[in-house]
């Protein structure tokens, strides 16, 4: 227990006040991982328990075939969830990921059919990034609420997708296009490689770069960040552009595998990605969360879907299961937050109480 407060204002370097040596993130690496990823670790535990339970209930669950299946199911939502996580960390939201995906696929698909795979893929990606930029521009420069802007963009893109094809699908995609859905790199499916690589890049971007630091700063307190010289507009615009681009990457993989571009592609992706991000411990008010959590969130949802299928539960129940998990995970987050694990232990004189 603490002794009486030493005379801290007398000019000597009063170190005994500190319980823990400051600047010890290298020294206490493991402890810090626990502190930083507390929620994530709990979700990981839940995930492992879920997988364990499903393995017992069905021998089919823990097979390479099903693992690949799971990966496939996690891919589209997983890729977009990376962007959604960035945006939610800035206290924003993107409801347009599904619409942007469908629009990019459809308009890019037309170019794909006309000018070939390279031009087509480039077009799909460019459309995605472009629509993301529109979101970003409107949100950053007109200061409209992200919810409104992306809701509007979602509606417009989805509608234009129907208009351009008169609600028909594009079928008979060129053979070269199938590489994204069917190709493999040394036995590992291409989509898995893409998902993994994007998560890794995203995680590094968030934890090791200025851009990532600014994302957290904006979500934590936008005005304070602005007054500290953070370029709010640019940082936000980039986050939305990245998300638009990722929506296009996701739809590329999906349509490549399905061999057709359907105007309904991506329906519900916005809610799935938001759910994954929230389950993974991100706060919708921004500044709190991580891509590690998001990745766990994506797989938790996917395994729930997949597992309930495998053990023969009616698909109608899946929504209930996922909804419950969302609410429980946020409650859990609250409870863990209140346990005060992360609250520094301080002398009364330092705590302002």
């Amino acid at each position, binding site marked *: 227990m603490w002794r009486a407060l030493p005379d801290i204002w007398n000019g000597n370097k009063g170190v005994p006040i500190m319980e823990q040596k400051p600047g010890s993130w290298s020294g206490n690496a493991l402890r810090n991982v626990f502190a930083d990823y507390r929620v994530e670790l709990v979700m990981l535990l839940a995930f492992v328990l879920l997988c364990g339970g499903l393995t017992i209930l069905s021998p089919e669950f823990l097979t390479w075939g099903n693992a690949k299946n799971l990966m496939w199911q996690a891919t589209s939502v997983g890729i977009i969830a990376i962007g959604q996580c960035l945006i939610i960390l800035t206290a924003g939201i993107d409801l347009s990921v599904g619409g942007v995906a469908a629009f990019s696929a459809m308009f890019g698909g037309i170019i794909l059919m006309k000018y070939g795979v390279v031009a087509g893929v480039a077009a799909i990606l460019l459309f995605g990034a472009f629509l993301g930029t529109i979101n970003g521009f409107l949100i950053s420069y007109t200061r409209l609420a992200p919810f409104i802007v992306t809701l509007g963009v979602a509606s417009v893109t989805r509608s234009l997708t129907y208009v351009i094809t008169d609600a028909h699908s594009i079928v008979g995609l060129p053979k070269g296009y199938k590489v994204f859905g069917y190709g493999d790199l040394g036995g590992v499916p291409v989509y898995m490689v893409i998902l993994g690589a994007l998560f890794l890049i995203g995680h590094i971007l968030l934890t*090791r770069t200025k851009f990532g630091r600014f994302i957290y700063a904006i979500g934590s307190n936008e005005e304070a960040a602005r007054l500290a*010289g953070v370029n709010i507009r640019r940082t936000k615009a980039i986050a939305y552009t990245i998300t638009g681009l990722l929506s296009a990457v996701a739809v590329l993989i999906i349509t490549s595998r399905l061999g057709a571009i359907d105007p309904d592609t991506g329906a519900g992706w916005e809610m799935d990605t938001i759910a994954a991000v929230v389950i993974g411990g991100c706060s919708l008010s921004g500044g709190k969360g991580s891509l590690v959590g998001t990745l766990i969130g994506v797989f938790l949802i996917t395994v729930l879907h997949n597992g309930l299928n495998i053990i023969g539960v009616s698909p109608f129940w899946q929504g209930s299961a996922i909804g419950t998990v969302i609410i429980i995970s946020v409650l859990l987050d609250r409870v863990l937050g209140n346990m005060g694990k992360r609250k520094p232990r301080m002398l009364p004189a*330092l705590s302002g*109480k």
Partner: protein
Amino acid sequence: MSEALLTVRDLEKSYDGIFALKGVSLEVQRGEILALVGENGAGKSTLAKIIAGVTRANAGTLELDGRQVSFHGTAQAQSAGIAIVLQEFNLIPHLTIAENIFLTHESAYKAGFWQDNATMLAKTVELFDRLELDVHLDPRAKVMDLSVAEQQIVEIMKALVVDARLLILDEPTATLSKQEVAKLFTLMRRLRDRGMTLVFVSHKLEEIFEIATRVVVLRDGLKVREALTAALSEKELIASMVGRDMGDLYSVRHRQEPGEPILEVRGLCRGNRVTDCSLTLRKGEVVGISGLVGAGRTELVRAIFGADRPSSGQVVLRGRSGWIKSPLEAIRRGIGMIPEDRKAHGLLVNLPVYQNITLAYLAVKGAFWIRRGREEAMVQTRIDELQIKVPALRSPAGALSGGNQQKVVIAKWLMTEPDIIFMDEPTRGIDIGAKFELYHLIDQLAANGKTILLVSSELPEILALSDRILVMNQGRIVKAFSHDEATEELIMASSAHVASIA
């Protein structure tokens, strides 16, 4: 048996195993204004909150009128006759004054359900009349349109409608101007004359001597002194608050000849808050801006810094003219700003201390990749230099005390090596010890050729630190004093009166 209204016995309270109160006993006498005094973290707010049922003690008892009481929540305390006005108000911004005052009061509702606006309004007006308030408030005005001082009056009114016998005010003057404080004190005296007992939590010495009949000093969760205000000198009070003799708080500056002009502002306007302001800042100079709250001081500083866009005027920085378009540009050109509202504008309270300290540096100087080892070393240097007390570099900035939070903000700006630092009420909400250190720091910065633009509502502070003092009144700079000619009276005179514009 006891004549005390409230007797507190051996109250203990700890947060996460750390004691905020280590067994405090005191009596509150009927009809007195008791000042609960101490530095930040001394436990005075905790004590006030326990008495008012906001939090519960771990040990100890409360006796009201000689009977032991124990409150679960403020509602129970209120029905026993104890009300508290917290630092952060509990008002609903979109509701009117009357609606806020009577929100949970049964007389505002017919049959306990239907809103009864007529009765509510009449009662509010009656309440205002009874107190002979000289501020005129429309009971139908929305709370969000009120000033802080007016909102505080609404909070006090809420205590009155529940017939509180004991009213606790937790740092009520923290955000008030001198005039508003005077009005608050008039109101407090009036309440006392009507038989109410008041407990006033504060660390501002002048106010304590002005209003309180008795003083209880807390330090580190213990009661260290209890005395009638009349029997206490300011020096003694400071000594018992900090536990030692501070010397003279206000004689820290080493005067020097200022250097060449570095920043010039010409005819700057911003909406109707800042009108035609011109000023020149020189190297190594501390320029104070005095004035009442709402005189446009913060707005002027923000407009120069590029936080808000001026509507007209010029800023000339090292010979280059034109407005500063964004804080980013200001920082690039060598300016830093400690904002008035530390938690809203100065800090990212949820993010770790180290991220707060390097934020502005990263924004203007940092490379794309953050090298953690280097960042850690840079932060540690600043922490040692400013003697910031942090449990760990990774603790959230919001968990620090006010003084250490402000030091984090200062460290953030020192990282960018600015030539000019704007300081808007830099000592607000920090204790005397930290204040003293900040004064020394300002002196040191000036000695090293930095320029400080200091906005402060505390006259002794601005008089002690500034080489020149500008007085703002209704958006204009109405007066400039050199350090030698300025006095509290002169400054008050030009800030308070609708002066003929010179």
